[in-house]
């Protein structure tokens, strides 16, 4: 597994520089805007990094070659989920810093909304890799791309619309998404755990049946 993580780390550092640059640009934009889309975009970019890596794996035929090494099929699947989580954590960190800067500039320290945002954003960001990874493992990136774009457009449109609707609400917008209190946080974390576990189990089943 460590070998696979090294491989994906090297690839992400070389192939996903643009993703990382965009994460910083959008996070910087979010400092000066109340549009939620600018906050969510970095998370969304982070969430699709494993899909990009699978696409490069297919291009180089690593997806076949990997079968000759002592990796279990669970490891070959799991590494993409770990990458998704690592990049989501990175994206969340970047927007977290951006929001701290925004609060510092405005002098409005709303820690409750900030905390909510830090939970809502990665939770929402988790949805796209959890939908995409099993479908990409099943169909390959080329065919899975249709689902990829559908999810991308759907989520981006949703947050674009929310962004316009809440344009004047600032950071409080996240707090207003009907998520309040510790119970809601627990529900959200449970949702994350269920969608992540469900997606992983499905992806492993698909990969075990797959012939490479």
């Amino acid at each position: 597994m460590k070998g696979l993580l090294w491989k994906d780390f090297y690839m992400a550092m070389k192939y996903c520089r643009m993703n990382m640059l965009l994460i910083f640009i959008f996070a910087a934009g979010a400092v000066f805007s109340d549009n939620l889309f600018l906050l969510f975009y970095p998370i969304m970019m982070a969430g699709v990094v494993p899909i990009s890596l699978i696409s490069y794996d297919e291009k180089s035929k690593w997806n076949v070659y990997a079968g000759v090494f002592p990796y279990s099929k669970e490891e070959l699947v799991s590494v993409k989920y770990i990458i998704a989580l690592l990049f989501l954590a990175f994206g969340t960190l970047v927007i977290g810093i951006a929001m701290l800067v925004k609060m510092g500039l405005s002098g409005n320290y709303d820690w409750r909304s900030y905390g909510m945002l830090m939970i809502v954003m990665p939770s929402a960001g988790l949805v796209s890799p959890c939908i995409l990874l099993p479908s990409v493992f099943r169909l390959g990136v080329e065919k899975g791309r249709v689902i990829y774009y559908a999810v991308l457009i759907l989520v981006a449109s949703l947050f674009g619309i929310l962004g316009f609707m809440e344009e004047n609400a600032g950071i409080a917008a996240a707090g207003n998404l009907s998520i309040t209190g510790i119970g809601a946080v627990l529900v959200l974390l449970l949702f994350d755990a269920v969608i992540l576990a469900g997606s992983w189990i499905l992806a492993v089943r698909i990969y075990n049946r797959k012939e490479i």
Partner: protein
Amino acid sequence: MNAIEIKNLTKTYPGFYLDHLNLTLPSGCIMGLVGENGAGKTTTIKLILDMIHKDDGFISVMGKDHLENIRLLKENIGVVLDEAGFPECLNAAEVNTIMKNTYHNWDTAAFEDYLRKLSIPREKQFKEFSRGMKMKLSIAVAMSHHPKLLILDEATSGLDPVVRNEVIDMFNEFTRDENHSILMSSHIVSDLEKICDYIAFLHKGKLLLCEEKDILLEEYGVVHCTCEQLRELPPSAVKGKKESAYGAEAIVKRDAVPSGWTLSPITIEELFVFMIKEAE
């Protein structure tokens, strides 16, 4: 102990059927798999490595059912596929880090040594490698964790003759240890003839023949004669023939040919080509 034992192995794809394949590779030996494109060589190799699922049959590797602990088995197997699939952005130094964290027995010093021997640059990205260079890196990776079994699928294709010779010497060196074995498929039959102890002919998913190379070379010969003379030979002696306006050429079983005939030595390539034609 046998390095590989395959019994009644079957696999069906649309338009292809691997038909009850039986093969045994004894430890310490090199077996060459020869066959036209689509004969079932890569399918057999992928089935051994559980990259594809068998329909039926039994495969044992180094004395154990290959599915019993495939991860542990792969620790002891070095594989070169017909296309080396390292991501194009990686270089040999990064491949070393990845493999160090993949194989328990990975030997960085041995890998560096292979890089030097095969003139593979450490820092150049894989995308800038020629096909031959990619195969060389793949061979270095396959041999640097001290495997007991090498499985090579067209490993020498794309290499120039000088490097091919060097690589074949490396494989020969590898089997000096009597616990080391090689299963090797190649279109370059002359390579197989140089190093293999056993030769297996696959044709359209069927095993036509599996025999010790020396026995094959002793058993068969080539007859050059006229078409009329060829018809005087007992049909059981002729295993394959080619007739033209200028004469005939036939592969014959030496012990079935009456005395007085002049037989030339045969090459494995000639035997293969004639047998495939005959099978069709």
